[in-house]
């Protein structure tokens, strides 16, 4: 009897708004470019550890070293791309760990009141009341250097950021009538969490991933700068900065190059996050 008249945009145009926001476009392009450089760069560049003592502290655009060389005559471009690979690998893995722990605990806590919720929320509050970097320094100083300790420490200390936001969002979703309707239909908790709540928090999660990636990159650089990140000899954006301090007046590009790389990655990720927010908010407006 009734005919179905679509009242919202048909599915074919759903991808349209994706490219409507310039921020998202540039952010996504820049992040892709950075990832490409980090993954492919080290294969194409020279050996980042090869020292040529007669070609020390060459300025950028020198013959054979377009970004110049450092105090040991190592190619700066090779070191930057290798450092980028390391830094990004740390940022991506620790973001993934933080998001996974944070989201799972947030969903469990949001699902119902009880000891799990209390425990998670108290833990989140406790974690967020400590200065993260200071704790990270202490932990790494105890357990030691290396990729795995670094990633586990950063992820294990920053998950409450995800837990807090996702919990707020998920518990508001749990109050929705369609979640009640699913309970009434006999759906199990896991089905409700996986089918209704997780897809509901996904947009927020996506945005947070972008911003968190930038935060983790900065944290990694800070730790490496202090000598607590990348192992000795392994280039990273942070320890390159640290090494550049001695030559600040003779070879300022040693500082500018890694600093610019950090800024570039952080700005790209934030641009992507902003673009995602804009785009997802636009979609929420269309489908209230």
């Amino acid at each position, binding site marked *: 009897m009734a005919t*179905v*008249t679509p009242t919202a945009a048909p599915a074919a145009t759903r991808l349209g708004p994706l490219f409507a926001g310039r921020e998202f476009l540039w952010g996504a392009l820049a992040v892709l470019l950075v990832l490409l450089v980090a993954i492919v760069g080290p294969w194409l560049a020279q050996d980042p550890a090869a020292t040529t003592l007669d070609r020390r502290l060459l300025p950028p655009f020198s013959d054979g070293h377009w970004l110049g060389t450092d105090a040991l005559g190592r190619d700066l471009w090779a070191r930057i791309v290798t450092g980028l690979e390391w830094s990004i690998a740390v940022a991506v893995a620790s973001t993934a760990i933080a998001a996974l722990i944070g989201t799972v605990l947030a969903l469990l806590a949001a699902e119902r009141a009880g000891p799990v919720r209390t425990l998670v929320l108290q833990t989140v509050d406790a974690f967020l009341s400590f200065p993260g970097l200071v704790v990270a320094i202490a932990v790494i100083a105890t357990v030691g250097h290396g990729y795995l300790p670094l990633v586990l420490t950063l992820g294990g200390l920053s998950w409450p950021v995800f837990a807090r936001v996702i919990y707020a969002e998920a518990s508001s979703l749990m109050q*929705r*009538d369609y979640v009640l309707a699913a309970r009434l239909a006999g759906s199990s908790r896991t*089905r409700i969490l996986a*089918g209704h709540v997780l897809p509901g928090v996904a947009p927020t999660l996506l945005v947070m991933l972008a911003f968190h990636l930038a935060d983790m990159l900065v944290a990694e650089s800070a730790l490496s700068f202090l000598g607590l990140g990348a192992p000795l000899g392994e280039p990273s954006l942070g320890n390159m900065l640290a090494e550049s301090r001695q030559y600040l007046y003779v070879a300022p590009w040693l500082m500018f190059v890694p600093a610019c790389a950090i800024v570039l990655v952080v700005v790209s990720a934030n641009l992507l996050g902003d673009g995602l927010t804009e785009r997802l908010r636009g979609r929420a407006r269309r489908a209230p």
Partner: protein
Amino acid sequence: MTGREPLLDADDLRVTFRPGGRELRAVDGVSLQVLPGETVALVGESGSGKSTVALALMGVHPLAGGRVRFEGRDVTAAGGAERKALRRRMQLILQDPYGSLDPRWSVARILAEPLVAHDVGTPEERAARVRELLGQVGLPLDALERRPPQLSGGQRQRIAIARALALEPRLLIADEPVSALDVSIQAQIVNLLLDVQRTRGTSLLVITHDIALVHHVAHRVVVMYLGRVVETGAVDDVILRPQHPYTAALISAVPARRAGGARQRILLPGEPPSPLEPPAGCRFHPRCPIARDRCRIESPPLAPAAGGGATACHFPGELGALPLARDERLA
């Protein structure tokens, strides 16, 4: 009441919330029965606890007291598996069709969800059942791949009804099923519910604030005020000869679809008090036009009244007997 065994028999239901440590008796000793194939209306204003009764019957709110029997079996005492099986044959339709459907899910997925949750049939059988359900609620098959934001309010409520019908319930509880819809669409949904009841023999428990709707759909009516039943009886008895002054006032508040004329209305002073601080004695006495000293002290029990129903009033029928200009209203 007939000799038929009630399908649903709720006895002395109590639901208590504790907001901020204080005790709120949202439902305070409510009993109601629904016979097979019968439509019962549960009427009340906001804060009366009528929706809480629905959620308590469905097991969403834990009972602080009382018992629910369904198909002769005690749901409250039943164990996990039996309880799930019993609850499967009671389904609730929620008020707001904009909130009760996940905007990200397709109609096909929404309708299949109860079948999947109860592990009914193969995927092919479920798909066939979903198409059948869509036909039952009068929607075309091309609605299957749509998502709720692409449907109108009336179409969404049809989907919500179809979802409730998926498991072939014997009792449908509908909480304000049409109050979020436009008048012309309300009639479609009311007719659909009545049609479902007629063709499938489903019992209906309609929860509403709308006396005109009650009059139109129900066989029996239960009137609630501040967590308690104040009057119950056959719908014609209650609407023509209300025994409780609150029921009489509710009926008189229905806008007569005629203007002017010498109409007499019972205007109640004030508003329903907070269920956190219910008045002593009869809970209705601060607003009651015929309250006397006794009403301020003694809470009236629900007792059989003239006309076959029951009412919780010390002076039943007194206000209903006032000239309500009934000929004007009901002629």
